[in-house]
């Protein structure tokens, strides 16, 4: 805190002050009667906030305490009203009093997370004195801990990685830790950087057949299983624990089971044996991911890397099931054994329990494969090194601590100190990035894209924007002339120029950007794959870090928000985009001798899309490069406008919604680039995702609008004729807990009521009335499944797949949602109108809006007229009144059950036989393809396929082809039988 002047007159005043403060504090219950303060020092520092003139260092008191927790207690004391010591009212504001202890230590000694340190003058503790389960413990004075710079030693330590997965057996529904036992735990151990696994173990409840390549340890009691797992875990002493959803499921389940079984001394998974691992329910708020409920489990000295959380953070996917994730990234479909089957397998015999074990091992293996494939460890290690935080902060905490760590390190170097401020969330908002209104159209000329490279970091550097360069008074008052400062547009914030004082944030950014350049150069030269992974991780970490600095200044509930900075950054950005547009329009105009008047058709945040005119791709690229160079010159370094790519053709549908063929070289296109187009969302059925992709191929690659329209019509026709594969029509949604669903419904009601008031006249056929509780299709399906087979019913968290089938007139859509397997087996007729009108129409209309004059026309015409007429279904309500009759294959005349053709059509036998056989052959080929694919996915020739992975399209195809093949074969058998 800032030193009160009185204390500085005589040295003994400080001692007196320390004594009195200690006495005061000791009275507080937080300190348990202890004297918390050991030392108070006076030092010369400057607060980082605002430029206050040249060399304005002041005296500050640096308070040393006995225990790290006392820092916060003292800070709180100072915040309170009775902060009178020695008749002085102490200042309320403290500095750097909210830094986690570990980080504080690391900053003091320049140590970075995942970096190497060197110890000197240490004594190794004898085993009996050890307080942890670490292999080595030393006594050392902290001043002998020395960080080794990364240039000298950059490899990642040979960390021991344990990946594990548990299986539970529940008789009914989803396993519940109160009564459903853990039946298996599979572990796979690997050392980082080594290819082979060290060991795979599976602990099983009940005897289990051996598995080649794995150790199987069987137990008769769950207690023994859990205890043995703990012994194994402690003995193995892993550095990193990974798995899929371990943080919110596996680890808590193990701990809670142990508690329910009243196991003593359980939960000692950390390296400090006295600390039991416990579960804390937490909430994790991050701007990127919103509020999520999490479970924090303390496992001292080990890193928990939950691949599911990692995937959710880093990737946008329609589903985060391990199946889907491994399919997307490892190109492996994963067998999925439903938990209801697990119960049956568990209770059968050692052979079936082995089946679970093999499956469980696979689930333990996939997270490791994913981690390696995605270079997770490298990327996390490099992020920790670049930002200087301990690696586990990267999992547990948000973006801010990373910037804070860098800022603290930089500030320390320049004798700045950072105030610990307390902010309440305000509704204050500033104007964000600038978006030039899109001129929506389908462009069949090259569109050049001009991008500002790292826009926000380069603005901050160019204009020297920092807490320490911002003025909160006029330049005149701190002795500066007007040319020594920069005034931001619109916000009018004033920053001093770098020749007066260089800002901390620009310094950090320069370091990051230079380091990234260096890493990229090294990467280009490096050949060793491990080192390459390290360097790639580093350059990525550096890029992300540079971009998060802006966010740090703008985060209103953050550590050190400064809206003057963030608002000024965006205002510069907006000005630059507008300037770019104006310059392009001015320079590339007929008036100035160009062949065409250029148009700026869209601009978003850091990019501007320019239509120079009806040029070739090559010419457009040349103009783009020229324009970028021309405009870059007008900005202060390091702001740079770059030309990277041309879109041709380019379909601009709306803000942040476009598709185009992307070219970076004039000779051939790179790929199709899309933004905001519904090709990934799971709420859409696969059919629409497929159609959008195909249509874009027609429009952008083949540039054949006619075929695109024809293709679309063909698909609609096929849909109406029931020729679309059922797996393409499956819609899935995840089932929330009952309570949440209720809440959602209530919210929906409220929202809808509000809306209703607003648009009284609008047709609200689908909206709800006050007393009517809306049901969602997937909830209805879940209920139906529950009623059919309670043991196989889905529970909260499951993804429910459904298909909309035809219902009686006047029924609501959700009532007609049905389990796809049921639809297949019972041959329910699909509601094609629903699919056309509610699933396909909107996105397809959007695609064609600027392509053809009347996109509505795609949805009317002959191709929508012929409909598949479903066979009357014996299982349907109507079916009960209908008698099934066999019809002649050729003329449809009613014939006897065991016949295929009527007497008049017998001469058509060969024709019918041939037709039937061709159909049969196609079905047989598919049958063989699906079932052998699943057999080999399942990993054994001799095991039955049990998989019920509904994320996998084969699942439905497999069932359907079975039924279709049988039907087709029956038909042929009748033909064979009839003429003999």
């Amino acid at each position: 805190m800032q030193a009160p002047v009185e204390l500085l007159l005589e040295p003994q005043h400080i001692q007196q002050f320390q004594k009195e403060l200690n006495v005061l504090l000791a009275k507080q219950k937080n300190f348990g009667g202890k004297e918390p303060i050991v030392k108070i020092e006076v030092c010369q520092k400057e607060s980082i906030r605002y430029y206050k003139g040249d060399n304005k260092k002041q005296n500050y008191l640096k308070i040393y305490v006995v225990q790290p927790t006392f820092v916060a207690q003292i800070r709180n004391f100072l915040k309170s009203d009775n902060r009178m010591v020695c008749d002085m009212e102490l200042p309320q504001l403290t500095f750097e009093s909210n830094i986690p202890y570990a980080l504080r230590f690391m900053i003091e000694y320049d140590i970075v997370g995942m970096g190497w340190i060197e110890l000197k003058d240490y004594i190794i503790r004898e085993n009996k004195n050890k307080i942890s389960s670490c292999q080595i413990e030393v006594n050392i004075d902290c001043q002998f801990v020395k960080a080794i710079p990364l240039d000298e030693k950059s490899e990642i330590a040979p960390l021991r990685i344990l990946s594990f997965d548990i299986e539970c057996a529940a008789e009914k529904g989803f396993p519940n830790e109160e009564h459903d036992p853990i039946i298996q735990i599979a572990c796979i151990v690997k050392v980082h950087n080594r290819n082979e696994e060290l060991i795979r173990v599976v602990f099983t409840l009940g005897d289990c057949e051996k598995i080649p390549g794995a150790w199987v340890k069987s137990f008769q009691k769950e207690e023994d299983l859990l205890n043995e797992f703990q012994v194994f875990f402690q003995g193995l002493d892993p550095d990193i624990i990974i798995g899929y959803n371990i943080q919110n499921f596996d680890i808590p389940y193990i701990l809670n089971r142990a508690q329910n079984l009243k196991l003593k001394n359980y939960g000692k998974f950390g390296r400090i044996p006295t600390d039991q691992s416990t579960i804390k329910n937490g909430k994790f708020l991050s701007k990127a991911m919103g509020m999520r409920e999490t479970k924090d489990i303390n496992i001292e000295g080990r890193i928990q890397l939950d691949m599911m959380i990692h995937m959710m953070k880093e990737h946008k996917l329609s589903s985060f099931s391990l199946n889907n994730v491994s399919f997307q990234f490892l190109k492996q479909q994963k067998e999925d054994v439903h938990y209801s089957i697990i119960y049956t397998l568990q209770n059968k015999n050692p052979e079936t329990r082995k089946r679970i074990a093999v499956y469980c091992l696979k689930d333990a293996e996939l997270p490791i494969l994913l981690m390696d494939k995605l270079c997770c460890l490298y990327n996390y290690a490099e992020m920790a090194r670049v930002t200087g935080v301990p690696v586990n902060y990267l999992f547990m905490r948000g973006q801010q601590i990373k910037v804070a760590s860098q800022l603290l390190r930089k500030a320390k170097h320049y004798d700045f100190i950072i105030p610990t401020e307390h902010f309440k969330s305000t509704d204050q908002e500033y104007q964000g990035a600038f978006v030039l209104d899109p001129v929506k159209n389908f462009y069949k000329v090259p569109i050049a894209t001009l991008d500002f490279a790292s826009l926000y970091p380069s603005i901050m550097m160019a204009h020297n924007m920092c807490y320490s360069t911002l003025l909160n008074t006029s330049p005149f008052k701190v002795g500066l002339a007007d040319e020594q400062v920069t005034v931001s547009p619109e916000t009018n914030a004033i920053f001093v120029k770098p020749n007066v004082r260089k800002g901390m944030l620009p310094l950090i950014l320069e370091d990051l950007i230079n380091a990234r350049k260096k890493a990229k150069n090294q990467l280009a030269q490096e050949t060793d794959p491990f080192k390459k992974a390290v360097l790639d991780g580093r350059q990525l970490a550096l890029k992300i870090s540079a971009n998060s600095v802006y966010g740090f200044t703008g985060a209103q509930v953050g550590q050190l928000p400064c809206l003057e900075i963030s608002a000024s950054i965006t205002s510069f950005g907006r000005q630059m985009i507008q300037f770019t547009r104006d310059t392009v329009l001015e320079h590339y105009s007929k008036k100035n001798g160009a062949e065409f008047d250029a148009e700026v058709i869209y601009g978003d945040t850091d990019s501007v899309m320019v239509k120079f005119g009806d040029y070739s791709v090559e010419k457009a690229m040349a103009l783009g490069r020229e324009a970028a160079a021309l405009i870059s010159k007008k900005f202060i370094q390091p702001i740079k406008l770059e030309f990277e790519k041309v879109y041709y053709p380019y379909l601009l549908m709306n803000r942040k919604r476009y598709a185009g063929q992307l070219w970076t070289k004039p000779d051939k296109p790179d790929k199709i680039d899309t933004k905001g187009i519904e090709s990934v969302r799971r709420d859409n059925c696969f059919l629409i995702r497929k159609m959008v992709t195909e249509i874009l191929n027609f429009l952008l690659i083949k540039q054949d609008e006619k075929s695109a329209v024809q293709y679309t019509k063909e698909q609609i026709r096929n849909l109406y004729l029931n020729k679309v594969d059922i797996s393409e029509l499956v819609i899935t949604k995840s089932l929330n807990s009952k309570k949440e669903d209720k809440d959602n419904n209530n919210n929906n009601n409220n929202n809808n009521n509000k809306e209703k008031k607003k648009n009284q006249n609008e047709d609200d056929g689908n909206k709800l009335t006050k007393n009517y509780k809306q049901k969602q299709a997937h909830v209805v399906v879940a209920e139906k499944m529950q009623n059919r087979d309670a043991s196989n019913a889905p529970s909260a968290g499951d993804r429910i797949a459904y298909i909309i089938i035809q219902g009686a007139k006047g029924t609501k859509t959700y009532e007609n949602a049905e389990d796809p397997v049921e639809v297949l087996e019972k041959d329910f007729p699909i509601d094609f109108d629903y699919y056309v009108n509610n699933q396909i129409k909107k996105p397809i209309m959007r695609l064609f809006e600027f392509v053809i004059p009347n996109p509505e026309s795609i949805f009317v015409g002959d191709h929508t007229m012929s409909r598949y007429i479903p066979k009357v279904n014996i299982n349907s309500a109507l079916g009960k009144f209908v008698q099934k009759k066999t019809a002649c294959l050729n003329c449809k005349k009613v014939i006897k059950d065991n016949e295929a053709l009527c007497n008049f059509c017998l001469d058509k036998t060969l024709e019918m036989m041939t037709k039937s056989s061709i159909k049969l052959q196609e079905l047989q080929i598919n049958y063989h393809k699906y079932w052998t694919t699943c057999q080999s996915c399942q990993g054994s020739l001799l095991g039955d396929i049990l998989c019920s992975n509904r994320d996998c399209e084969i699942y439905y195809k497999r069932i359907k082809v079975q039924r279709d093949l049988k039907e087709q074969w029956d038909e042929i058998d009748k033909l064979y039988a009839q003429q003999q």
Partner: protein
Amino acid sequence: SEKKSQHQRIGLEIKQSTKFYLVPRDKCIKTQYCNIYSARYLNLVKRFQIDSEDPQFIELIQKIQDQKGTIKAIGTLFKEMKLKPYYFSQNQNKALQGRSYIHIQDYVSNEDVCYLEDGSGRIKLQISNAILCLPNKKEKIVNVSDLVTGITLMIEGQIVANNIIKVEKFYLPSLPETPMLKQLNSNSYLCLISGLNYNALESTTKYRHMIDYLQGNLYSGEGGDIPYNISQVIFTGNLYCKLEETLDQQSLQQDFKGVFSKIQLNIKGVDELISQLASVTPVAVMPGENEPVSQMLPQTPLHRSHFPETFEKEHQLILLSNPTEFTLGDLKILGTSGQNISDIKKCSQVKNQEDVDLLEMTMFYGNIAPTAPDTLISFPQKDQDPFVLQELPNIYFVGNMQKFGTKMVADNVRIVSVPAFSETGTICLINLSTLECFPVIIQ
């Protein structure tokens, strides 16, 4: 015609075994493919010579952990082929290539890995120049690319790492007992013809010549009386040429009439040929991969409606399954229309070997179609593997091969690779008394 009467053809009756006729389908379609592997394993495991006292022999692969050093184990081979077109890889290719499927004819790559599996587990095999011990006491050097999925083997090798075995020797199951051969009183021949690939739009002269020869109407120099002594002619698949159009369900509706008219012409042409031939000698036909009938092995026989003229005239025509097993007089005969061997060629490097050597290998494997059901499309079986050789036939023939070849595999066991007639003009004749076998080339 005077000559004809001098030679009385010996009438031998064909009796088909039920082995390749299907069990009721409604039960079987729900059966999974894995059952056929279990049945195969259980059937063949009995045919290995095992010393039950041998400490190196492990009965179940899962027990491999209890062992050190050299081990022996029996299991089914599984070759993981990187290029095998699984459903997903196909679909990804489809996305890349627009709408057309990629047809990979050859699945062999350097990255292929072999595993040995029994009901208890699977181990990885390291194979480099291992010795394959054949049941005829000969040995061969083999590598991964020589092997195919589905064969049942005993391995002998060293445990080199967790669950990995370096194989030194492979053993195959012993052959079943050799069959008897009864001498006939006079010369009698079996005639094998495959791959007519009849195309009504092309010249049919060579087919006429063939019929002429078989009817004894073509002068053929020495041995000119052979045609009169043919007791049975067998057409082993691919009577009709392959359809150029690949038909899927969608185009079937629209184009069927056009396609059928072509098919019908071929069917009619073949019917005429066979009707002529069957008027003088008994004929049997097996379906092959080109025929418009079920494709899954065992293939169901063609239908009477494919041969309206022949049946109308009440000629001697028997419709066989593929593979087929029957007795002709006292001879046991086994044959296929070639899919089993072509599939082995796709999955292994052996394609450079003589066709007849591949036939011989399937005899040694004790299984005529090891790659079914993995890559060879076949019917799921509940508790039997019909392709396992329970007994040795006197004659084992495979049609639609590239080259003629023949061998005696054991006493009284003749194997013949029958080349496609459309390509080579070759038909094969086997003397039923001596099992002597030779090709006749018809220009």
